[in-house]
């Protein structure tokens, strides 16, 4: 048991002393996850919003597919994206494999269904009177959509935060598409797996603590938004 305690104490020491490697890994993790969340938000929120407000043929099937994709395992996304961006794949010439962009592509694929399906529910949960009220106030279609968007803003933010939480904590995509290259694609989750394999518990635990802290911060933000809504 001593090694766990010792590892924990060393981890705290690394965090307090702002260890350079720990900082570099955390930076890569945050950078990749933030970019992928922004991209998934830019596509997923409008898509969910569109699905909620527009009735068209095949809408039900799209929603069903979207919900199915929520259960997509990260290793499967890794495999899928790998097959496209590996040297033999259709996008192989771009040389994306084992770069941060490869990780970002994989994480966008992971976050898009989460953010769009939660945006869909968020928009649907906005009172139907909002649309009518906007129209009585003389709003055109775009302005009406803006009213609905603003009224559902807290639920939409929750959708984005949930998407971020998911990509920040995933390991399969980062490992398969990033390749865990030190200083380039090694993020918190791949580093934990790697360091633990080497028996370097201190860095693993320190990274775990950082991961938990970010997850906690995200959840505090989420709950405070929900509280504000209620």
């Amino acid at each position: 048991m001593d090694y766990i305690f010792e590892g924990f104490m060393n981890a705290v020491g690394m965090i307090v002393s702002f260890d350079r490697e720990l900082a570099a890994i955390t930076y890569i993790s945050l950078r990749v996850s933030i970019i992928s969340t922004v991209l998934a938000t830019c596509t997923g929120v409008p898509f969910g919003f569109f699905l909620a407000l527009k009735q068209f043929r095949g809408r039900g099937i799209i929603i069903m597919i979207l919900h199915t994709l929520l259960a997509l395992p990260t290793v499967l996304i890794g495999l899928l994206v790998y097959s496209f961006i590996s040297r033999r794949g259709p996008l192989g010439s771009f040389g994306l494999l084992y770069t941060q962009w490869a990780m970002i592509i994989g994480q966008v694929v992971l976050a898009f269904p989460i953010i769009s399906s939660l945006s869909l529910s968020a928009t649907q949960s906005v009172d139907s009177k909002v649309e009518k009220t906007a129209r009585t106030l003389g709003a055109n279609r775009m302005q009406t959509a803006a009213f609905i968007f603003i009224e559902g803003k807290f639920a939409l933010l929750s959708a984005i935060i949930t998407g971020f939480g998911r990509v920040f904590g995933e390991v399969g995509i980062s490992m398969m598409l990033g390749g865990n290259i030190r200083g380039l694609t090694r993020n918190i989750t791949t580093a934990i797996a790697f360091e633990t394999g080497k028996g370097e518990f201190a860095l693993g635990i320190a990274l775990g603590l950082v991961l938990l802290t970010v997850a906690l911060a995200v959840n505090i933000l989420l709950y405070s938004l929900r509280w504000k809504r209620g």
Partner: protein
Amino acid sequence: MGTELMRISEFAKEYDAQQNGFLLDIPSMAFEKGSVYGLVGPNGSGKTTLMNCLSLLEEPSRGDIFFKGEKVVRSNMHDIRKHLTMVMENPYIFGTTVFKNITSGLRCRGINKNTYPETVTTVLGKVGLGGFENRFAPELSAGERQRAAIARALVLKPELLLMDEPFSNVDKRNINGIENLIRSLRKEEDITTIFSTHDISQAYRLSDHVISLVDGKIIDSSLENLFDGMIGDDNGSQTAKISDRISIAVVSDIRGPAHVCIPPEDILLSFGPIDSSARNSFKGIVKKIRIDRQTVKIYTDIDHGIELISLITRKSFDSMKLSVGSDIYVIFKTTSVNVF
């Protein structure tokens, strides 16, 4: 005769077609500029549907709507909608400050933001919510929310203001405030107001014209003393059975279920049965008395909850010395009963 603002012609609106195929059917109706209209009718009579159509939120199934002589079609609907607005029943208030709620319609119209503070202060003063600018609107009371919604509509300076049940879910104090507001709108020549209400006397008090709507049709009668009855023959004379014990003598071509309505001003009150040509005479107990300036409304229970309202002059009321609990006869002629 004032200038016509809006007119509906050969108008029909079907809704809940799968359930009961209800039809709002109005051959013709015109609204004059600057007048206040009270729309009354029981639940399900089509008031909200008519309001939605007049506010151009819903399209009629048949017929036309004209606004200032211009026929409303899809291509001009959005532009015309900017000249009118509606305050819905239990209006939705945006999750922001009162100020931003009030200015939401102004923003849609691209009106200069510098004018907002003064405009908002004026309109909030008008509805009795002065100083509420920075309050979080969803935290207001139901009555305050209603008044904020009216302010949000008034700030747009609409030519036609529709208010669907503005008095529902509102306490007594706020009812007075909204009633005073409608009275003040009556004095404004540029705004036509249409409001719907359950309270018939309120409609008469506040509006220039009362529109009675029953089962989707405009009826030419007050809706006070409105009953559902079964028209049949009773010993050779036609009657409308409105309860187990009460049958009213009527004259009508209708057979079977129908509505009957007795204008309150056509009902006589007497302490004893009188020998007259009136064939309807019922004994009852005075349940409520409502005194206005010149007239008095007497609510008489003639059969366990069946209440007849009669309208008499203040002078008659004083000479009869009526009080709640008095035994009284209510008497009216067969020809006074409207059947539809």
